[in-house]
């Protein structure tokens, strides 16, 4: 494949093309709606340690993160799919993942595909925590269910993820029912 010669290409550039290049900083040309299904699967397959180490932490927090990631590797939890599908996902690892995706929702542009991926995985992490979700987040079960509803409305979510979300919602509802006092008590 012929190597792209940027110098030669720009030397032949029209005013319109040069104008677009000079204005790159102002362009909103990240990923598009049609990229979301691929981004979703990519995030599931992404190695945990790459993303979870990208957030800057210092001192004790960084050491704690290292310990948690080492523990994950020792029980063969290597990707986000491994984590979310694990029958008993370690709570500390779920917490790390939740913190990462929350951080990404704050860093991403409003309505961007990256923001939607980050928010979805934030929700999935809390749903995976099941009855321990309240230890990871102050988000109420009602708010979490509202988030799950948003997720189920997204056309780019695959069938397997929908099942995961629905199962997570059922657990939430069962937990809420179990904690309600019985009639007559």
């Amino acid at each position: 494949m012929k190597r792209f010669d940027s110098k030669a290409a720009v030397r032949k550039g029209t005013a319109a093309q040069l104008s677009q290049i000079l204005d790159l900083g102002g362009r909103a040309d990240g990923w598009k709606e049609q990229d979301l299904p691929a981004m979703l699967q990519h995030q599931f397959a992404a190695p945990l340690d790459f993303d979870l180490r990208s957030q800057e932490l210092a001192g004790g927090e960084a050491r704690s993160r290292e310990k948690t990631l080492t523990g994950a590797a020792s029980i063969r939890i290597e990707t986000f799919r491994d984590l979310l599908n694990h029958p008993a996902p370690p709570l500390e690892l779920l917490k790390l993942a939740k913190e990462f995706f929350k951080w990404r929702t704050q860093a991403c542009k409003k309505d961007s595909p990256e923001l939607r991926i980050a928010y979805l995985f934030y929700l999935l992490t809390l749903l995976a925590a099941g009855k321990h979700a309240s230890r990871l987040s102050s988000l109420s079960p009602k708010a979490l269910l509202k988030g799950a509803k948003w997720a189920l409305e997204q056309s780019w979510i695959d069938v397997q993820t929908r099942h995961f979300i629905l199962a997570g919602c059922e657990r939430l509802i069962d937990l809420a029912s179990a904690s309600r006092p019985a009639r007559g008590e």
Partner: protein
Amino acid sequence: MKKTTTRGLEEDWQWPATGWSDSGHLPSTLGRNVNRLNELILRYQAPLKAYLLAAFPRLVNEADELLQDFTEDRILKEGWLGKADRQRGRFRDFLKISLKNFIRDRLSSRANAPVSLEELEYDLASEAGGEEAFGLEWGRTILAEVLTRMEQDCQTPQKNQPNRPQIWDVFRLRLLQPILEGAQPVGYQELVSKLGIVSPFAAQNLLATAKRMFERHLNEVIGEYEAAGEAAKDEIEELKQFLAGLSRKKTH
């Protein structure tokens, strides 16, 4: 390293720092790095030639000779740059006006009499054409330099940055080639597979880093002939407006 010019002079020059000094004048002394000088002279040749050919169409057969004479008699002449004054306008305008005046003086001295601009087929329309040709070539020259530096920067290995070449590749495949070649930007799946990008946020970071790197190199290149800070920002804005205006004009 010595360079022998066509006039037989052995030159060993360094182009002075072209940032405007605090007095508003460019430094008038020349140093001793002929490679740097050649690099800068070559960089300005294309826009100056474009201006000359568009503004003085009658001189097409003498263009190269006139430019070489202009370079030797003006640009390389000690003290000439000292005439450039920040308060009176931009450096590229100074170059262009100096060339116009040089051409008129040179042709007048040949004819042993002042030569009118009409005799040179120079009029408002040709001046406008010259301005556009100069501005377009200037934009091309600047961006060619920016992109060359950015690509070299990305290919230079740095500690703790093993994915540095990916920055250029993402920039090229998602932004640059689609603009310059009219191609569709490479899709997400193909891009991450091709470049071995491990997660969507890694891809996002690469694209954001690429844009920041482009802006940094753009400011550096502009800062080599205008002062850093506000002057460079103004120059970039002016170039953007000129090119946007020219592109609108061409589509009508």
